[in-house]
């Protein structure tokens, strides 16, 4: 790979890069070796600690908790996209009495940590007599937060479209709703698809917060296995197993985002609005798409990290 930042390396640079490369490998290998050695010394790889994973029932339970994680994710993902559309359209409205409340709602929902919102739904609402299942507390909190983030993403996508698009729509006699529904939103959504999927990865990761309000999802079950004294409290093995599942799920979604991005950038019909920088590196980052597409004063409060 070449970059504008440096030349194709000559013989001395190649040598220096190799030395630096070896140094990097040594440092990283030493760190990993230290961790593995300490884990081995403290008996984390002993058969006793892993034997709990030899039972079919345990794996059935792991599967069920993964399904509960995915169930919360699916409901939250769909809900967030719907809410995102509603709020984005409301914020783009010409009527002040629609636009201003929508703006306030988006700003407030984005500023409140998801976990606090979950706690409010799960521990707070019973005070006034409303008792929510932990599943619904997780889903509603994730919908509220991610919906408000997606609203900004979709709105940014619409704003970045050339003005001629909506003018052409009005010129052929469409009404405001038609221009929005038939012309602006489809293009905006296609342009912003990678960011939308990246936000869905955040949603998937944030379902793990449900563990704190006792929603029995993957991490909750990992904790349960991990505190099983009969098998020597295999917390580390449980964390490793559940961690691999989470990483596999999220990497799958991220991979999908990259595929979608490549597809849309190849499709001839999509108007690539000029904010996408042609000199970007191969893999574009979320922040980059956001910063490229959005008026700098209007960057969503969350660049992807959950937060």
């Amino acid at each position, binding site marked *: 790979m070449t*970059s504008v930042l440096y030349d194709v390396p000559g013989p001395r640079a190649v040598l220096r890069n190799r030395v630096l490369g070896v140094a990097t490998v040594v440092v990283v290998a030493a760190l990993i070796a230290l961790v593995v050695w300490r*884990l081995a010394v403290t008996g984390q790889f002993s058969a006793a600690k892993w034997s709990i994973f030899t039972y079919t029932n345990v794996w059935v339970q792991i599967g069920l908790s993964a399904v509960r994680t995915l169930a919360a994710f699916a409901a939250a993902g769909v809900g967030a996209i719907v809410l995102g559309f509603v709020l984005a359209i409301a914020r783009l409205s010409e009527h002040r009495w629609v636009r201003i409340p929508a703006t306030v709602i988006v700003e407030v929902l984005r500023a409140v940590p998801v976990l606090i919102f979950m706690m409010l739904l799960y*521990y707070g609402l019973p005070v006034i007599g409303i008792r929510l299942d932990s599943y619904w507390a997780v889903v509603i909190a994730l919908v509220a937060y991610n919906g408000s983030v997606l609203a900004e993403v979709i709105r940014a996508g619409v704003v970045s479209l050339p003005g001629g698009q909506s003018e052409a729509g009005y010129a052929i006699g469409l009404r405001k709703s038609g221009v929005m529904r038939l012309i602006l939103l489809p293009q905006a959504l296609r342009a912003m698809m990678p960011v939308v999927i990246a936000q869905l990865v955040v949603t998937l990761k944030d379902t793990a917060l449900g563990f704190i309000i006792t929603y029995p999802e993957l991490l909750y079950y990992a904790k349960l296995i991990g505190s099983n004294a009969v098998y020597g409290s295999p917390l580390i093995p449980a964390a490793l197993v559940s961690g691999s599942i989470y990483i596999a799920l*999220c990497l799958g979604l991220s991979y999908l985002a990259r595929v979608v991005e490549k597809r849309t950038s190849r499709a001839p019909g999509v108007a690539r609005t000029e904010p996408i920088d042609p000199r970007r590196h191969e893999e574009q980052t979320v922040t980059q798409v956001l910063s490229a597409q959005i008026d700098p004063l209007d960057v969503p409060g*969350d660049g992807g990290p959950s937060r």
Partner: protein
Amino acid sequence: MGIIIDNLDLWGDALWGTLVLFFAGAAIALVLGLIVGAMRVSPVPIARAVGTVYVNVVRNTPLTLLFFFFAFGVPLLVGTRVDFLALGIWALGLYTATYVAETIRSGINTVPVGQAEAARALGLTFSQVMTLIVLPQASRSVIPPMMSVLIALLKNTTVAAGFSVLNLGSIRAYLSERGENALGVLLWVMVIFIVLVLLLGWLQRWLEIRWKVTR
């Protein structure tokens, strides 16, 4: 208001806990993120690979799981009990560092190619190109997304609540022992977070105007 005035001591401690998590976590994240971001654009292929693996693995791990790993794994690794606050700071720092690294990398990409080309045409080396030409310009365009990362970090401090670190996320549990109304407590926590996030947002706009790149 009674909820706050009657328990001023606890609210003070909780706010302090949140701020310590935020500032210490941000310090680790910024330093480590700068290193990893530099690794990801460096001419050394292995450094790029290490940076990529770190960013991809950690970004695809839930923060809660990372906390879980730190709370239960690290005490085993070092062989002694470690303060949960310190563990929480490291978990937040290592997690946020990946986002900082990505932000820095995307900031480097916003610097016009001509700038780097001109610098190389003058015969500057990679480190000179970076420190004299690219990073000073990138650091300005990076401010809005970087503040977004920091706002996210601020909100993420609440996750420490699941691991018995006193902060605004865990104050509900402490106050319900004193018989306070959970709904009221959580609404106040929400208000505090909205104020803190608005403060950071205001700082972001101020820095942006002050350090605007004229192109």
